[in-house]
């Protein structure tokens, strides 16, 4: 199932079987064909000085995304859906297909619906859309708040979700979601040289997002807040060489076996504001993520770290086929000590989106980056992040077809 060829074959077969939906006069929910939608993206990334997300210094095409979804209304109030997704982004994904989301949804009232299954996490304005290239101007959402390398942790949960939409007299409308469940993680994706994650578990993830949509004449103004609680437990197995090195350095006691046990409870929140009217979009979000850490044996005292993340973003559709955009994103890891380059990342991005046809787009994007927080040491010759270049640039081209 991991073969891109096999995946493409399945995609083609499914698309041939299901013609696109057309409404007919005798349509009822059950007699309609399922809604079928898909996208295919291919990108190219080139950076100066540091590798970013992939081996981008030499130029990399390891920047592929494919998604296919089916949605079917069984009755007016009951529907089911699923999306298969695969990607390749440097060391992430490797064309391994997975269920991005699947659900059954019962819509009791507009103010109360229930979803069960794997649903995207509503965190901030765009987390649940972070894979959807056709739904935005930039290639990359601001990585301070929507880090693509944390997609497995942040994108979707398996459990339940309550949601609703309620117009309020004179003061607009509320759009709210409450969810709880767990996150299934692939432990192999976290392995690093000398260490193996032998067990990983998310005993809980729970949270909410509440958005307020302003009334006329402020149509298009949205403000809101999102909260998320989760805990990640993992067992980390060290290689004999790593264990010997730690014992020699006195970091672990002489009777240390070979496994560290981590518990990482986390609390994330983000405040959001967006103005989207006619062809203009302005957005800003401010977020803080707190992780408490407990490591056994206790090689470091229990503690916590709180990162700060925010961005401002704007775009304007100049013509139906052309939308430029710009954002500035800031990320500080919150690590104690001097404000060295490995503790922050500032990202100034300029994007151009060209809608070549109604179902095909091309994007060009440039980033000027300062700071190395969030970079991968493994992608940069295992150098400490503090030794990488402070000022660097990234250029991206990406094309997406969708329907």
């Amino acid at each position, binding site marked *: 199932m991991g073969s891109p060829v096999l995946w493409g074959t399945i995609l083609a077969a499914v698309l041939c079987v299901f013609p696109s*939906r*057309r*409404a007919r*006069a*005798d*349509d009822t929910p059950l007699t309609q064909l399922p*809604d079928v*939608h898909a*996208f295919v993206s291919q990108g190219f990334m080139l950076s100066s000085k540091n590798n970013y997300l992939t081996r981008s210094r030499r130029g990399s095409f390891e920047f592929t995304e494919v*998604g296919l*979804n089916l*949605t079917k209304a069984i009755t*007016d*109030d009951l529907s089911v*859906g699923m*999306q298969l997704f695969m990607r390749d982004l440097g060391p992430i994904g490797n064309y391994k297909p997975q269920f*991005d*989301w699947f*659900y059954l949804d019962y*819509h009791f*009232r*507009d103010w109360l619906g229930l979803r069960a299954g794997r*649903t*995207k996490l509503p965190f901030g304005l765009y987390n*649940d*859309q972070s*894979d*959807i290239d*056709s*739904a*935005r101007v930039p290639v990359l959402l601001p990585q301070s708040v929507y880090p693509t390398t944390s997609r497995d942790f942040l994108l979707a949960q398996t459990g339940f979700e309550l949601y609703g*939409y309620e*117009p309020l007299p004179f003061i607009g*409308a509320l*759009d709210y979601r409450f969810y709880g469940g767990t996150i299934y993680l692939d432990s192999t994706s976290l392995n690093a040289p000398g260490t193996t994650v032998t067990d990983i578990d998310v005993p809980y993830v729970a949270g909410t997002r509440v958005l307020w949509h302003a*009334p*006329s004449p402020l*149509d*298009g103004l949205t403000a809101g807040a999102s909260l998320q609680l989760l805990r990640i437990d993992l067992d980390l197995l060290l290689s004999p060489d790593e264990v010997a090195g730690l014992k020699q350095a006195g970091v672990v006691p002489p009777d240390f076996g070979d496994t560290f046990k981590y518990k990482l409870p986390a609390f994330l929140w983000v405040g959001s504001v967006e103005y*989207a*009217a*006619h*062809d203009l979009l302005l957005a800003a979000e401010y977020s803080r993520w707190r992780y408490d850490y407990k490591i056994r044996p206790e090689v470091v005292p229990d503690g916590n770290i709180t990162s700060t993340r925010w961005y401002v973003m704007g775009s304007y*559709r100049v013509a*139906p086929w052309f939308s430029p955009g710009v954002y500035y994103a800031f990320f500080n890891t919150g690590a104690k000590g001097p404000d060295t380059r490995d503790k922050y990342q500032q990202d100034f991005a300029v994007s151009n989106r060209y*809608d070549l046809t*109604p179902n095909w787009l091309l994007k060009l994007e440039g980033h000027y980056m300062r700071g190395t927080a969030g970079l991968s040491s493994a992608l940069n010759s295992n150098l400490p992040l503090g030794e990488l270049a402070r000022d660097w640039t990234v250029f991206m081209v990406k094309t997406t077809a*969708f329907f």
Partner: protein
Amino acid sequence: MSLVAALALGVLSPAFASDPPPDFRVITHPSRPESSVKREFLADALLKNITHWPDDESIRPVDQRADSAARRHFSETILRRSVQAVKTYWQQRIFSGRGVPPPELDSDDAVVHYVEAHPGALGYISGNVPIGKTKVLAVSP
């Protein structure tokens, strides 16, 4: 409300009978008791934020092709977004598993036939085409 705004919102009255037709008219199934709807209700219904009429009947919204003049006028006037922005909104919904857009029909006639055939249907057509057995709804700000 100015005459131009009233026409743009589909509010028709005999006093304006000799004026040019509005850019679009909002139509619903003849069994619906409403004679008018608020603009925000109409926008929420077409964007599927609201899925039921006040008496709990399901709303069956229907849209027009992205390149139709009626859709362009409806989108700018009622949804307060360009057609492209609305398509982006539906891309977000489709690929995040939050819903699918209303059916897009090819012509005013097709919309009229759809609305006639579906109780609870809600759509819009160009201002100068026959409405068949459907019912025109006035739109209040």
